[in-house]
């Protein structure tokens, strides 16, 4: 793609960055279409599809009724028949009614057909809480989706990664899920854009490989593994701890599946201490999987027990103070780092 070298640097929100990738791929692939609720007329609840119906028409930017079961079934069938659907789901919480299409058809058809059928489909999904939207509109659910083989899952933490990972998803020939924490979209009504999530985004297309983590900050005393919004919380925690002379390394997983196990182990082997921060429920989740990497490879690299900062195993409360208490916020991450520094191997 031609790159205009006179173009000044553009600072994008994550919604705009993801949208630019989808628009670019839709221009290249006439068989790619976008389907979901409130995308054509409204431009997406989180601004993921602003202006797209104007360019591509409502045959390729399709507003659906509130029937996730129906339109994800349509998308899965369309993918098996050779099209490249992009499915917009504003809230990951609603994915429950689509599990049969996703788990048993989209994720397994390539394998069960001996590679004769592919299912090139990408979900763009919002997740996460912190704005009083209660138990059915605030979940994260990485583990629920990541548990089933055949699905790749990414969650960018800034606009540069949002665009690159979206291109990787759209170019993949099987099921990919691109998830963005709602507080990172850059939408005013969900809070002002976080300065760290805004980043310069080149005009040309680029990809970021699946399963490649990113070190946001190098350190030597402790590794904080985060993803999505918890990367930003970890960065703030690292700033606070630096003023006390504690050197924190912040690792952003970027991909949930496949997970960069080598990258995680490399960092923990260097620092000797591990804190994992994730907004998904604690049990059977990303935090446990990260700890398993170290436990399986060589737990002797740990100078102290690892600490998990995840969502307690309870429904997300509506009440602001109760929700704040549960979130993997800066305060909890700082406390976890302190705990790993106090804890010593027996």
């Amino acid at each position, binding site marked *: 793609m031609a790159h205009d070298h006179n173009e*000044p*640097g553009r*600072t994008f*929100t994550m919604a*705009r960055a993801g949208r630019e990738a989808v628009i670019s791929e839709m221009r290249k692939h006439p068989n790619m279409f976008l389907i979901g609720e409130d995308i054509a007329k409204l431009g997406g609840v989180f601004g993921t599809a602003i202006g797209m119906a104007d360019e591509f028409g409502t045959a390729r930017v399709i507003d659906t009724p509130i029937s996730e079961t129906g339109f994800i079934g349509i998308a899965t069938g369309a993918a098996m028949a050779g099209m490249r659907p992009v499915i917009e789901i504003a809230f990951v919480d609603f994915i429950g009614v689509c599990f049969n299409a996703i788990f048993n058809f989209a994720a397994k058809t390539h394998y069960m057909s001996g590679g004769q059928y592919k299912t090139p489909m990408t979900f763009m999904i919002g997740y996460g809480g912190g704005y009083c939207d209660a138990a059915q509109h605030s979940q994260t659910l990485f583990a629920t989706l990541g548990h089933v083989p055949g699905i790749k899952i990414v969650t960018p933490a800034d606009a540069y990664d949002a665009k690159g990972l979206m291109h990787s998803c759209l170019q993949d020939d099987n099921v990919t899920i691109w998830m963005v924490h709602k507080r990172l979209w*850059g939408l*005013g*009504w969900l809070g002002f*854009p976080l300065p760290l999530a*805004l980043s310069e985004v080149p005009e040309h297309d680029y990809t970021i490989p699946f399963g490649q983590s990113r070190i946001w900050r190098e350190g030597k005393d402790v590794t904080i593994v985060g993803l999505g919004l918890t990367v930003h919380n970890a960065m703030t925690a690292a700033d606070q701890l630096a003023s006390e002379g504690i050197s924190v390394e912040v690792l952003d997983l970027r991909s949930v599946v496949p997970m960069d196990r080598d990258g995680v182990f490399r960092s923990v082997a260097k620092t000797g201490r591990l804190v994992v921060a994730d907004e998904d429920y604690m049990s059977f989740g990303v935090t446990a999987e990260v700890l398993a990497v170290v436990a399986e490879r060589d737990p002797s690299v740990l100078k102290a027990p690892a600490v998990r900062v995840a969502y307690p195993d309870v429904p997300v409360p509506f009440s602001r103070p109760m929700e704040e208490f549960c979130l993997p916020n800066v305060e909890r991450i700082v406390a976890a780092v302190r705990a790993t520094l106090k804890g010593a191997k027996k």
Partner: protein
Amino acid sequence: MSADTVEILVPDEAWGESLEGVMLTWIYKDGAQVTEGKVIAEMMVEKAQIEVLAPASGRLTILAQPETVINRSFVIGRIAPV
């Protein structure tokens, strides 16, 4: 301010019945050269996201900072010819 400098205002139709909006982000930095018709900023009126297009080509001066309240007549920036 030269006579050819163009003021950036948020178009009337974006406001609806509202008197106030909030500046969200600038896509280009202060002093950057921008092109007429391209999206240069995002703002919010009520719950709606508004894209602000460059009214002219030239050098951008940012007047309204992100996270500040703006009203209908507020000049949020200027574009000077280069």
